[in-house]
């Protein structure tokens, strides 16, 4: 499931008045251990004060003179990935989370960084699957072309058993670097599971096939440490959403990944480089 800001937002906040003094707010902050203060004037939020602003402002100032106005309002259903894009693209410092026009929480960049850290795979440094779910859902919502390339390392179990897990981990790391370096800039990569990676593309099948081929060739010809021969297989699934009315995006996303995963297993089994989901029997997909 895609994590939402409502899962990570800080609910401990007090709305202060624009004319409240910084000294008063500081005292409340110390007394109650609260570090987030939306500031309102005539029932409208005009800014936000966090610890940072409290530390910087002169204690005699009024709240209106200590606020940061770099904030945006979002709703509780906003995903953490969309929040990340807002922090990056809009130069905002705080996100006010609203429900029915009422502030119910607050998210700062540091809150979000802590959460995003949990979605980074420690071995490869790639994001985990939640990141990919978000980008597939976004492409579907934007009615963009979308193909998913599911990548599996061939005979990885054998590598682990024959040469040890440390060796296997090094290979996974090197593959992650290669995929990240050579994937197209408008595509999204994650480590999906053990020896599985996913690349989400805004492409139709033909272009996705060509990119999968490129990645397979790069990994296949790369000189891994200890001169291992490592190869990958890929399964590709495309979603055509133009004519469809989608009621449950999560189901569509899950089905798409599943189709690509099954195609990848089939490619591995058949010892071919890649296979597309449309080449499979409907019984295999179901």
């Amino acid at each position, binding site marked *: 499931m895609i994590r939402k800001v409502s899962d990570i937002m800080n609910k401990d906040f007090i709305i202060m008045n624009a004319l409240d003094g910084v000294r008063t707010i500081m005292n409340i902050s110390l007394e109650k251990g609260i570090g987030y203060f939306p500031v309102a004037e005539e029932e409208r939020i005009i800014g936000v004060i966090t610890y940072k602003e409290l530390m910087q*402002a002169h204690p005699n*100032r*009024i709240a209106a003179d200590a606020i940061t106005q770099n904030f945006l309002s979002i709703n509780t259903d906003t995903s953490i990935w969309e929040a990340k894009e807002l922090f990056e693209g809009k130069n905002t410092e705080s996100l006010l989370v609203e429900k029915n026009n009422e502030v119910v929480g607050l998210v700062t960049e540091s809150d979000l960084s802590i959460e995003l850290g949990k979605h980074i795979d420690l071995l490869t440094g790639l994001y985990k699957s939640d990141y990919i779910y978000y980008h597939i859902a976004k492409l579907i919502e934007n009615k963009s072309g979308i193909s998913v390339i599911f990548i599996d390392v061939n005979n990885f179990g054998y590598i682990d058993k024959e040469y040890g897990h440390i060796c296997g981990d090094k290979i996974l790391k090197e593959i992650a670097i290669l995929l990240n370096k050579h994937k197209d800039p408008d595509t999204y990569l994650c480590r999906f599971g053990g020896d599985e990676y996913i690349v989400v593309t805004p492409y139709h099948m033909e272009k996705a096939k060509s990119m999968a081929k490129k990645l397979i060739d790069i990994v296949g010809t790369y000189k891994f440490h200890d001169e291992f021969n490592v190869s990958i297989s890929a399964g590709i699934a495309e979603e055509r959403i133009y004519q469809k009315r989608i009621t449950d995006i999560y189901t569509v996303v899950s089905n798409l990944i599943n189709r690509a995963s099954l195609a990848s297993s089939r490619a591995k089994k058949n010892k071919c480089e890649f296979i597309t989901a449309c080449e499979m029997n409907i019984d295999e997909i179901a």
Partner: protein
Amino acid sequence: MGTYKQSTKKADINIRLSEFEMPPMQDVLIVGKRAPIGSEAARRMVDILSPDQYEIVKIEHPVVEAMIIRRGLLNILPQDRLIELIMEEGGKIANESTIIRAQINITIEVSKSIEI
């Protein structure tokens, strides 16, 4: 040790009376970024004491947050030019924690010749 035989207490009182300036500022205030009174507080003060007479101009400067300028001055000189002139001197002595009060006298001399 000696002992006090007599002690006296005396209070001297000086009173200085002067007219309270309304508002308690002159033509321009230069507000530092960490001054005790910020531009919003100053705006509220002048809006209450002298409505519509002052303009708050937030500026991009390393230590100065804003300037509060008497509107009458802006009728004589363009805002950008006036700020540039004030900051040329005021910017040198301003720091983050100060509020500097400036008095600006502008004299315009006009000389015209007409044919007679």
